[in-house]
């Protein structure tokens, strides 16, 4: 579940999760363990769950390109969430995977030819998905088939 966002003085776009950094070149960040190199998708981690080392984590920027590991087409969700949509696990070159919606693809086509999606090169995109109680645009990241 997402963290409650702390109120900020200025208004403007807000990331849906702390691992998303907005700005001219939006990107994801992770915490990397200085002892074993494992990367985690959060920014407030106190220790490494792979090797147990504590207090030896630093923030790293993650690649905006990856490859689809697996996906599912979701046909039933919460009110307000448009279905069908594609959820996917994307492997990043840093050795960590991230989950998000796969956009600019045809869900029906992926169900007919699932093998087509496995290993598909994808890239990060950022879109507004909501407006928060303070009127700030809430920005989320998705992946789309790689154009470059």
């Amino acid at each position, binding site marked *: *579940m997402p963290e409650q966002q702390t109120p900020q003085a200025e208004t403007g776009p807000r990331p849906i999760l702390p691992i998303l950094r907005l700005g001219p070149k939006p990107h994801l960040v992770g915490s990397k363990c200085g002892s074993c190199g494992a990367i985690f998708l959060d920014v407030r981690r106190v220790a490494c769950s792979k090797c147990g080392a504590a207090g030896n984590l630093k923030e790293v920027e993650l690649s905006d390109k990856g490859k689809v590991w697996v996906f599912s087409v979701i046909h039933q969700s919460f009110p307000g969430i448009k279905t069908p949509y594609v959820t996917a696990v994307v492997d990043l070159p840093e050795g960590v995977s991230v989950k998000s919606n796969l956009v600019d693809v045809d869900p029906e086509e992926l169900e007919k030819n699932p093998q087509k999606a496995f290993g598909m090169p994808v890239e990060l995109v950022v879109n507004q998905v909501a407006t928060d109680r303070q009127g700030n645009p809430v920005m989320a990241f998705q992946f789309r088939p790689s154009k470059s």
Partner: protein
Amino acid sequence: MRNVYVLGTGMIKFGRYPEKTVPELGAEAALVALRDAGITIKEVELFASGNLYQANAMIGQRILQQIGQTGIPVINVANACATGSTAFREAFMAVASGMYDVAMAVGVEQMGKQGLLGGAGGGSDPAYSTEGRIGSGLMPAVFGQAGMEHMRKYGTKLEHFAKISVKSHKHATRNPFSQYQNELSLEDVLNARMVAYPNTLYMCCPTGDGAAAAILVSEDKLKQLAGGRKRPRVAASVLTSDPYTERDLTLPDVNTLTRRAAQKAFEMAGVGPEDVSLTELHDCFATAELIHYENLGLCREGEAAKFIEEGGGVHPDLGGKCPVNVSGGLLSKGHPLGATGVANICEIVWHLTEDERAKQRQVPNAKVGMAHVIGLGSACTVHILTV
């Protein structure tokens, strides 16, 4: 560690009981188990209660407030879908350790119509809700993708997953304790509404209410109380949590902890997968059952589809081999979360003891039974019972 036996079992038909409370449902199953064991609540020395949705409500004590307040220690357990089986394990450990001679485990849940999409919300600004916006973390997505991993690695087809649902529903027609007892064709399953690819509606377990109970005793007590009745020994009781694996935090890895639990359980019981007469495994989705065939060693890595094609998992009466979920499984019998882990042990016990309650679906000559449960988050139990 001492030998531990299951002296008595009880369960109520899974279904919907909106007019009853959780402690009432639990009390009903507990009373059946006491009657089956031939003892009274006065002989029970420790009580472990498994319930998830009311984990802070002292359900165990409230069950005893209905069936007998003897002042014994009560443990209330919550461990996702492995809640009931973890309660069973607490009772097992209490007797195995030598501290108690008679312990009872009850698993109970009332889910009403709250589906597998339940549990959303919270106090934070809904604008920051991630579900459906940066992928899905809900059960249908997790187990859909767990099946897709198998599809990716081994070319498994939608039909293989669907056949599991057909089989489970066929099995359930012979189980009066099952929430659903209707047969479905392959077309029915494939043409049903898609929930999360590749699982259609009938490849997802229903929600419901239910309760199950088991009474565990030491060898000395068994001799005093069994009166010559055949009672199975709990040959292995294993609980694991999810070890670090690379994608576990993005897509819960339901395989590694199951494999570890199964391996430890076979070592503890001194048997192998080839010795298992029947298995009740955690088929919360059809995709889950397929991958657990391999995780539990019922077939080789990558050969689950072949296993299905050769009649694996199907009751021998129906021409199959290596029967899995002859109760109907979670897909048909139902999955009242806290009750599930105790109910599947009841099913195993009934086959091993040729109990009346499994008469219509008795697995012939059953000597070794395996019960597997996985709760996301994650917790996995494997129990092996032998006669």
